[in-house]
């Protein structure tokens, strides 16, 4: 007779296959929507938003099911929540810093020009 554990794992395996199919479909969808332009004509914001939404859903499926985060211990959730706060702060701080200083645009352009100069042997 099949044990309770074996039955549970067989149900999990069906879930894994479902997630796998969903990930493949989402990959095709990501590529397909990249050929459509979203939002204002001269802006990429719409496309970036759509692509990031699909990628986040895919990442949530991988983390939730393959990495078992849908049913994990509290200590791991605490650890990840802390990481999430620092991750958001890291991204936000760099972006805020960029828009904070009017000179930073010129500094970046200068860096790029210097890089091109090196590439062209000047």
């Amino acid at each position, binding site marked *: 007779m099949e044990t309770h*554990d*074996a039955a549970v*794992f*067989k149900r*999990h*395996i069906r879930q*894994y*296959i479902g*997630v*796998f199919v969903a*990930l*493949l479909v989402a*990959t*095709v969808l*990501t*590529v397909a929507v*990249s050929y459509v332009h979203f939002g204002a004509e001269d802006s*990429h914001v719409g*496309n*970036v938003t759509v*692509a*990031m939404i*699909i*990628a986040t859903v*895919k*990442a949530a499926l*991988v*983390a939730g099911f*393959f*990495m078992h985060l849908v049913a994990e*211990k*509290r*200590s*791991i959730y605490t*650890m*990840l929540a*802390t*990481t999430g706060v*620092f*991750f958001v702060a*890291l*991204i936000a701080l*760099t*972006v805020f810093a*960029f828009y904070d200083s009017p000179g*930073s*645009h010129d500094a*970046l*352009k200068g860096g*790029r020009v210097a*890089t*091109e100069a*090196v*590439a062209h042997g000047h």
Partner: protein
Amino acid sequence: MDIPYTVQPREDTGLFNAKVGIWLFLASEVMLFGALFSSYILLRIGSPDWLYGEAKHLNIPIGTFNTAVLITSSITMVMAWASLKLRQFDKYKLYLGLTVLLGLVFMVVKGFEYRDKFQHGLLPATHTFYAIYFTLTGLHALHVLGGMAVNAYLWGPGSKMWRTEPERLTNRVEVSGLFWHFVDLVWIFLFPVLYLL
């Protein structure tokens, strides 16, 4: 002396120690890739001539293929762990072997992509886009290599543990799997960010 909590969960965390360890490591990895993603954002919004679409000379079908390869390797990885839980050692060997092979396929395809870029003179110094492209994909490829090395060990010599400490081997495979899935997860973001947007 035996290493404590390799199988039994600790009372305070409710987990075996290696699982706490790998999640802490993955948390540091989130910050590592986070720093590089924020660099990407900064470089992109600060560049007056960022490369879009065909100007990048990146092959989208090949990138899509490699994405599918990594996703497939994630399910074979989780199936390897589930096979050990179901006491099916032969299936474990099959699935983990496939995971390592799929990692190899990913690396070979990436190698061809790199060679193509170099042959066309597209180097990190060519453009800011290629600088961040090679940094992000190179660091990711190193992670794939690291994961392949651990999985190859668990498939080969490391699998002997099945005869003496099956629960401990199962936990090792789970921990290795968590790392492997994380590498897949990073690629899920890298693919659209570098190839499509």
